């Protein structure tokens, strides 16, 4: 056999493989059809793939039968019990159905990137944004970043910026994202984000490679987002909905939440759900005593991440409700978490919201001491979900109102991140 022929035998199959791959990725047939059932399951799958990708999000929010509303949040979203928002919406045939985006670790920086893949949705739909003060630690809760990050988010974001001059928020987010090794070590994104960070517009040439990348990555997303299967809707939401009374009555449901909470938290004095208590608390109970004495949420880079999300909502005129979560007061007493500090950080979050015109706020932060309001240490459950429903239902069931937000970029600054909140210096911050 001649050498030339041998070389063909070696590299020919490689070329064919790449050609086949190119066919799958570049031919214009759609892979993004999702059944009603699979969208329903996705709405409570809490999968990282939903945050990373755009295929399922696009399909759900464009769905004509069900009005899926994005719920941005983190670990609290997955506390499904009989009064969870998804269960109430299912049972009482609300004209909306929550679509949960996020799980433990998804903070505002994650959601800023997540939202880049669904800007169209944010222009037309209402949204719910659940803020956990626990995100607001000194250096931010960036442990989750790698888990939720995907290059597709970056590409979408850069395409959204287009040839426009990057805004202050874009510059800020670019500088933060560039510190994460998953992004920094990619020479291509590194270069483009440096440009954004410096406030330089992207060239038309960069945008056409980005459009090509988008094609490949979104195809990859459509192919692989199907691999994850979840059955929370069938196994948890539907059975829970079945057990609820036919007619919605706040008092009856509140009693039911009280009973279920009482039954579900019987093995400890903290009103923590039994299974959570035995697996997560009991083994380390002693070491947890006073362990949160020095926790502080008042000064954090997270305030600036939060601001980037607000900026994005304002840009799209999204009619959005913010939920501020409480902590379990019985538990906080044991761990020594300082309630004054907690309330001060809530006040800082609220000032940031209200001074820029975000006035739809469900502030539950004072209610963590109520019986069976919480499902465990920092996550609402039963009566807490019902209390939240009193805000969510009127908001989501009514028509959109015109928004009037005025963004103040000073909330991105170090001064704001490090401001120790007091009534005086909050109102002085302009």
């Amino acid at each position, binding site marked *: 056999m001649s050498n030339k022929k041998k070389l063909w035998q*070696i590299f020919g199959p*490689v070329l064919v493989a790449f050609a086949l791959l190119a066919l799958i990725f570049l031919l214009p047939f759609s892979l993004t059809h999702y059944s009603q059932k699979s969208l329903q399951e996705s709405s409570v799958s809490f999968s990282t793939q939903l945050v990373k990708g755009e295929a399922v999000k696009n399909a759900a929010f464009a769905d004509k039968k069900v009005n899926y509303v994005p719920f941005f949040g983190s670990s609290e979203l997955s506390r499904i019990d009989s009064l969870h928002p998804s269960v109430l919406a299912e049972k009482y045939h609300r004209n909306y159905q929550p679509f949960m985006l996020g799980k433990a670790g998804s903070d505002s920086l994650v959601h800023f990137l997540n939202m880049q893949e669904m800007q169209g949705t944010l222009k037309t739909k209402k949204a719910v944004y659940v803020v956990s003060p626990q995100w607001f630690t000194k250096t931010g809760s960036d442990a989750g970043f790698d888990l939720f990050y995907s290059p597709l988010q970056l590409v979408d974001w850069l395409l959204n910026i287009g040839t426009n001059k990057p805004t202050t928020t874009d510059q800020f987010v670019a500088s933060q994202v560039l510190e994460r*090794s998953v992004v*920094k*070590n990619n*020479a291509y994104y590194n270069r483009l984000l440096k440009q954004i960070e410096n406030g330089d517009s992207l060239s038309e040439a960069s945008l056409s490679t980005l459009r090509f990348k988008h094609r490949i990555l979104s195809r990859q997303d459509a192919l692989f987002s199907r691999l994850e299967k979840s059955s929370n809707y069938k196994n948890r939401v539907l059975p829970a909905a079945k057990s609820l009374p036919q007619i919605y009555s706040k008092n009856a449901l509140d009693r039911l939440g009280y009973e279920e909470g009482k039954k579900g938290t019987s093995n400890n004095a903290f009103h923590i759900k039994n299974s959570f208590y035995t697996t997560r608390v009991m*083994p380390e109970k002693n070491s947890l005593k006073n362990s949160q004495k020095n926790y502080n949420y008042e000064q954090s880079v997270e305030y600036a991440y939060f601001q980037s999300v607000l900026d994005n909502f304002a840009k799209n005129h999204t009619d959005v409700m913010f939920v501020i979560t409480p902590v379990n007061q019985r538990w906080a007493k044991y761990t020594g978490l300082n309630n004054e500090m907690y309330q001060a950080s809530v006040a800082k979050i609220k000032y940031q919201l209200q001074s820029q015109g975000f006035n739809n706020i469900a502030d539950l932060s004072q209610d963590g001491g109520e019986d069976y309001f919480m499902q465990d240490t920092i996550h609402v459950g039963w009566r807490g979900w019902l209390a939240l429903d009193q805000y969510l239902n009127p908001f989501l069931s009514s028509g959109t109102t015109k928004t009037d937000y005025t963004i103040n970029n000073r909330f991105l600054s170090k001064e704001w991140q490090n401001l120790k909140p007091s009534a005086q210096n909050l109102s002085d911050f302009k």
Partner: protein
Amino acid sequence: MPNLQPYADPNYFVYLLLALVPLAVGLYFGKRFVTYEVLVSLAFIFLIFDDKSHSGQGLALIIYSIWQFLLVWGYITYRKKQNTGMVFYATAALSILPIFLVRLSGAGIFHAQLSLLGFLGISYLTFRSIGMIIEARDGAVKDFHPVMFLRFMLFMPTLSSGPIDRYSRFAKDAAVAPEREHYIDLLGKAVKNLFLGFAYKFIIAHYAEMTYHYFQGMAMSDAHHGMLLSWWLIPVAYSYGMYLFFDFAGYSLFALAISYVMGIESPINFNKPYGAKNIKEFWNRWHMSLSFWFRDFVFMRFVFLFLKHKWIKNRNTVSTLAYFVNMLVMGFWHGLTWYYILYGFMHGAALAGNDVWIRFKRKHKDKIPHNKFTEGFAVVLTFHFVMLTFLVFCGFLDTFWFHR
């Protein structure tokens, strides 16, 4: 500058293979561009260490290389004139010193700062240089060529985790360009290895690791309930065994593929290890470049030393002892923790036990059946034993029992 960890993601292969194209074209036409090869090697080593979290390691690598350079140079120069055991042992000890200190500090026994001496690949570089000192002692390496030494020590494809090559073998390949026919065969093997490696490391090992983590979580919830043992430890062992093989074998395939493209036939590392009929055969198929290194430079040396000095007369006793020494040294090399050492001990015991069994079998040939079924049984038994030792090796038991 981006940071590129070897073979970590698909992009790495694109960059590396593009950089190697001129070298490959040269080799195809019978020319080896040594300067270019060295520059590419150095550039990709630099890219491993070029960020804040790795730069200390890069410095450690430079200092380490100078240290080994001086030792090997000094020893070969000395060996030309004289050959005493003392000097050989002293040089070998100095060559091992850095990794010894790193292991001590890793176990918290010594100054923790000494872990600063460590870097990705230190244990594999130690094999290269100490192997070279031993080859010099034996007269297999006669002259010191500074450039060839550095090409050998800092051979990029196998820098981080082997396979472990021998200087005399490497130098033969690296001095010339391979015959064209032969080089084409190497390219064929390289392509096959790369794609098999992708399947191993990026697909199978990826899922095996996910199941491994899942079973760890299940076992830990039993640990939190205060249980001393858990049924979940069984799938932990097997999923880890699968993960370890496909991850490491996949990595080795990559390292070989890149070596072949560079016209160097580094030795293979895995040959269907889970099909071994006994533990001795397992070590002839598992992490082969390491186990052969240990066989030649620890086991054999130990046996010869004892027989030569007649410290112990019985050959079987000597080899039993040598098995334990060999595997315990390997255990210590992995790190100074109870589970690596126990792992070494288990394999030492198994190798010794296997020898006893084979002698027994030979004596009673007529009574002990040997057929397809017994062979199949032996494969199954060996596999399960290896999985048990991997449960120890993976270190999860340490977490399970002592860090609940």
